[in-house]
């Protein structure tokens, strides 16, 4: 069972790291979320795995699962959410200020295919450019 969980943690970490290395903000945020899952489960696993033990104090219980990592992970989950929320809003802000969602604020990264075939995207950008002028008038 330990191997299975370690594998899950490993996969979550690997996929998380891969996505954080992407060039657009949204995948990076998703990657950080995956990484946060991995880290949380990892922290949790540091208390060793226990199956079927009671979670609360019970006079009849023989043993308990380790409550300390659980308490730490509980807050870690909530903080990870706070971080994700902040980052995604930061991504929105960057998009609003820079007009693109590249992590370095470029319209098109070095290793990216231009979006010319994708007319929708183009239409979107034109629309977003044209609207402020209309508002001014």
């Amino acid at each position, binding site marked *: 069972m330990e191997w299975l969980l370690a594998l899950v943690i490993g996969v979550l970490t690997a*996929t998380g*790291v891969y996505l954080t290395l992407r*060039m657009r903000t949204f995948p990076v945020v998703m990657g950080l979320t995956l990484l946060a899952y991995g880290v949380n489960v990892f922290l949790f696993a540091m208390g060793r795995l226990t199956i079927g033990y009671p979670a609360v104090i019970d006079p009849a219980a023989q043993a308990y699962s380790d409550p300390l990592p659980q308490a730490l992970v509980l807050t870690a989950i909530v903080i990870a959410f*706070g971080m*994700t929320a*902040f980052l995604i809003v930061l991504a*929105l802000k960057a998009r609003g200020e820079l007009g693109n969602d590249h*992590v370095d604020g470029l319209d098109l990264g070095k290793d990216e*295919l231009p979006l010319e075939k994708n007319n929708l995207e183009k239409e979107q950008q034109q629309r*977003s450019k044209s609207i402020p002028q209309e508002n001014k008038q």
Partner: protein
Amino acid sequence: MTLLTFNLPIVTMLPFVGAIFAAWASTFNRLASAWVAATVTILALVFLIPSISEVFAGETLIQSWSWIPAIGLEFAFRLDGLALLFAILILGIGLLIVIYARYYLYAKDSMGRFFAYLLIFMGSMLGIVLSENIIQLIVFWELTSLSSFLLISYWQYRKDAREGALMALVITGGGGLALLAGVLILGNIVGSYNLSDVLAAGDLVRSHELYLPTLILILIGAFTKSAQFPFHFWLPHAMAAPTPVSAYLHSATMVKAGIFLLARFFPVLSGSPEWTWIVGGAGLITLLLGAYIALFKHDIKGLLAYSTISHLGLITLLFGFGTHLGAVAAIFHIINHATFKASLFMVAGIIDHETGSRDMRKLNGLFKYMPHTAVLAIIASAAMAGVPLLNGFLSKEMFFKQTLTAVYETPLMMVLPVLVTLAAILAVAYSLRFIHDVFFGEPMELSEKPHGPPLFMRIPVDLLVLICLAVGIFPMFVVSPILAVAVAGSLQTAPPEFSLAIWHGFNLPLMMSIVALVFGVLVYMYRERLFAWHERRIEHLDARIIYRFIFDRIVMFASVITRSFDKGSLQNAIAWITGTAFVAGVIGFMSVSSSVLGQRELLPVDGISILAAAIIIIASIMTVILHQKRLIAVMMLGVAGLIVALIFVKFSAPDLALTQLSVEIVTIVLLLLALYFLPQTSPKEIGYLRISRDVFISVLSGVGVMVMTMAVMTRDFLPISDFFLANAVPGGGGTNVVNIILVDFRGTDTLGEIVVLALAGLGIYALLQGLKLYAPARDEMGLGWNDDEHPQIMQTLTRLVFPLMLMVAVFIFIRGHNLPGGGFIAGLIAAVALIVQYLANGISWTAARLKIDMHWVIGLGLLLATVTGLVSMGLGYPFLTTTYTYLTWPVVGKFEVASAIAFDLGVFLVVVGATVMSLVQLGKLSDMSHKQQPEKAR
């Protein structure tokens, strides 16, 4: 508990609290902040006054509270004669400065900001002089550096103000670091960080092998702050500050902090040849250099700045003698310099204010326009020059006498009285120049006729000059008692015999004074040739050039290093971080000789677990593969998150499962809301080299983490959790250990975490202010959005479910102490309940019915959590200790009430507030973008 057991921290903290009020008050009335500042200063004085009689009776008041006993940290205050003298100077002159500044500041200057900074600075200075713990002293020391930076750069739009402030910060902040190191060594030698112990351990320290490094490090701190050579050059540039700031910082406070340090550590560090050479040498050079340059400055404040440097050098030199009488003269001169220099700076401010210029080449004949101010200036500069019947004369006499004493001991020191007399000559010359150039001569041509200053701008000067006169004429009555206790406080023994008579007979020091006066006048009369020579030969030499050179090199060095790692690319930075973590991990594994995996017995695998693991692995890999199709990727991400919740269920962690489940919902909703405004797809990547590099890095990290997890999980360990398990019921009064840890045992951590969450929520709010984003007209498939924004079925259903969800939240909250649940989970559930309403009914509909500002909810939550902790402190327990009792209610029966529930309620409120605020702000954005959509896609 009398006032005398806790008044010192109040005196210190009052200005800090007052600063908040001063800033706040200015939003109502421009002048209100000045009133606040004056009131706070007077209040601090009032709290200080009761202890004065104790100090004069020879007592040293020490008030301490344990802070972090394990590393010798105490929150400790001390009031002896020296501290009292400085506290009175800081508060007394501070009050005059507040009155003066009220009239000095221009209409466009922000009063609130000025007085808030000034009060913070005042509090920091009080902290330095009243600290018993020397680490605490350093904290306040750094605070003075920071707050003086704010004060000097008060006129932020001026380049010289910004540069001067930065220079002061770099020099004094750097000195602060050295001081910290010195104090840590000192505390280590003595074995205590309390001044009482340190001051008693002088012999131990001086004979210790680390004495010299300690001395040098502490002196660097003192010299940078007190503008001693070679760190003197920041002070003139700090003159870009508003004049009240200069008058305060450079007469009685900031620069005197370094001097205070010399006086404070005098019994510990002085009395060795190293002390004499370093302190005396720096003092002598500074004395001469400052006096020389002061003569050639055309700016009044520049002249006063260099004269300040020179006088600080004089005081340092006096301490450098290492004799008790030297210390007496030094402390006496501290008082005198504070009074005459503060008044002179104020006069400079008046002149600047009334004429618009501080250039002595332009100013002339002002006596005619402001005779009263002129008289004040004449008396104050006479004190500065050391003219008899004024306070400066008395301390200078003592100073001359000390230099002569040094000659009796080592005849080689014959050069000392000569150099000192030279400095005195220069002092007379520059004082004369200040008076003669500004107030006499042909009345100048000015577009506007200058006039006398407002009454209350002059009264502080009146008072200070009066003190100069009173001290100069009746020294025995006016200054002798406070001087005696201050010296006793500094030396930590009874003060030596000293006499403050005006007339000591016709002796050598008097001769030196006369020589200084006569030759000073001569130097001034023949100044033109001197000036010409100075401009030709010396003018271009400026210590700032060296500073600039070093500073630029350091900045260059730092940016080269930064640029070689950070190329402005996020991927690059992340690759570095991941790579470093990997290398660190490998080194960690290599350094352990035993096998990677331990011997612990493993749990058996079952089919369901394999299935769940397969799903989460597939889901996360699909998230990666499909990450360019963002909507589908989010769905995959959601699957992975849900399986994580199941993992927690499986391994006996119901609290975590509940939390993960509710967070998962909120996260996915959030990502979907955000995705609405972002491109629905990512561009295709073609850099196969980069992709394979990234795959390589991530697979390595994944394998590394996996091996590390296994290495830990296959080993046994000794958990510290037995303590929590054993004490949860008797100590925390609940059976849910996880919740007890959160709200009681590790309550302070939780408090920190909800603060982070609150900040994230507020940060999101701030980021989204004024942001305009335009939503796409069609979705990914090219279809228009549904016209029916709020489907009827969803509306009806969610309204029905809403009270039920809230009830679940309340239930989860209340049972949290004993069964899985608690503030975090209940908060998330309540937040989901609210968010669902917003989603189903729209922002405006819900906002009209739910008139609660989430800012208040967050604030209330933080307040509640903190106050709960403080209450337990107030009752004498550590911060956030739980107390509980059992109530017997009718019907319900025996019911437990724990104080932790109030803390948990705080957690609950912060979680609800921050979560709802983040999502609703995003939702508002989409509402707005809908309204601004010029045409709706059909």
